[in-house]
């Protein structure tokens, strides 16, 4: 029987309460959201927090809302709600692409956006999605809030910019006119972690790409987007040659390792091919050729 090591359990009743608990309990405390990554890690003693702070009652963190400039998603919004959201499907179809292939419907009933990003697993899909979409993360503490880019949020494998007395509360995604996005993943079997995945987001200025981003998962310690991809896309006219060029940049700028999911060479090939596909589809969506 696999059971976590002993810990003390607290249930937060508000964001302020949750942050106050973290501030008081310090680095030995962890928030638990869906728990479907953290609890298995605790069973294996890969994580041994002394305190677990349950944040599932924080209904103020379950939302997807929109204003003129951005879409805001509460950190406790569950995978199921990200998948079902018509608002997200309309503005950022990359979310539905990715959510369809994250774990399975029952796990998606529990897992959350904030939990996925804070887990910061290099193979995790939503980090790549948020990197492609140029999302910003709102981190709260008793002294106020700060907003960090995905590049600054994701510090390394299983490591984020969220401090011991802080909490990720919201993800903000900029709305851009004439935009499109898509996600492509190859996995060994349905619901598994990615062998490699690639997410692309572009926004058009007439017939040319104003700018765009690509986020990769499972090809190295970090899932942040690649600067040189944006440079290649900026002002370029969409073409198969462009997709190939960007695919090659993605392959050259990742650092996959050979493991039971595949060889480094195969993963590098996937990074190229999946970037071509996600970019092609993102452009097709931005130009109204594909839903």
């Amino acid at each position, binding site marked *: 029987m696999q059971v976590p090591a*002993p810990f*003390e359990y607290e249930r937060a009743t508000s964001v302020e309460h949750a942050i106050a608990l973290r501030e008081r309990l310090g680095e030995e405390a962890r928030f638990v959201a869906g*728990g*479907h990554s953290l609890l*298995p890690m*605790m069973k294996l003693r890969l994580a041994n927090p002394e305190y677990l702070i*349950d944040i599932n009652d924080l209904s103020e963190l379950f939302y997807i809302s929109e204003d003129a400039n951005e879409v805001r998603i509460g950190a406790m919004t569950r995978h199921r709600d990200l998948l079902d959201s018509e608002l997200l499907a309309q503005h950022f179809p990359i979310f539905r692409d990715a959510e369809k292939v994250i774990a*399975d419907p*029952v796990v998606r009933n529990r897992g959350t956006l904030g939990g996925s990003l804070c887990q910061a697993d290099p193979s995790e899909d939503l980090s790549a999605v948020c990197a492609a979409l140029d999302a910003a993360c709102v981190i709260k503490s008793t002294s106020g809030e700060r907003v960090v880019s995905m590049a600054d949020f994701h510090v390394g494998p299983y490591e984020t910019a969220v401090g011991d007395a802080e909490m990720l509360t919201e993800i903000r995604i900029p709305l851009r006119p004439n935009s499109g996005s898509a996600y492509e993943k190859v996995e060994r079997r349905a619901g598994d972690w990615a062998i490699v995945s690639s997410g692309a987001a572009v926004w058009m200025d007439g017939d040319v790409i104003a700018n765009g981003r690509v986020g990769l998962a499972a090809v190295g310690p970090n899932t942040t987007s690649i600067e040189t991809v944006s440079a290649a896309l900026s002002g370029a006219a969409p073409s198969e040659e462009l997709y190939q060029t960007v695919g090659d940049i993605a392959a050259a700028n990742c650092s996959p390792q050979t493991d039971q999911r595949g060889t480094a060479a195969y993963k590098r090939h996937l990074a190229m091919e999946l970037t071509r596909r996600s970019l092609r589809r993102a452009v097709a969506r931005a130009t109204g050729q594909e839903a």
Partner: protein
Amino acid sequence: MQVNMTVNGQEVSEEIEPRHLLVHFIRDQLGLTGTHWGCDTSNCGTCVVLIDGEPVKSCSTLAAMAGGHQITTVEGLEVDGELDPVQEGFMNCHGLQCGFCTPGMMLTARALLNKNPDPSEAVIREAISGQICRCTGYSTIVRSIHWAANKETKVSLGSAS
């Protein structure tokens, strides 16, 4: 710590260790062994119970986290000696062989039909895709859920006329 929740319509109040997982709480402390304990890694889905009507893998949920919520286990499907149509469907369409995955399959099916009374085969297959049947009896499981959907649709049509 003390935890209070509703299990199959009954209030329970129990002393638990915070690290106690919901699946063990249900099986060992409440004695409801219909909920099965399988892979322990949220992959196989035999430990599925309903929390506030939503299927959840109880091996990756703490009993403490279920406090204050409504839990339904396979024992709660039957009402006053009458089987749930999903249970009848599994019986009539041979939806089980060894029976290990069955409680989780039936609860997920129940939650699906509550939301979508007339699901297509594709929708049913997607709904149970987080659950593994090592006898590979998926075709009969899908057929069983269809059977239940048909029975319930007929009943509700009957009562409407």
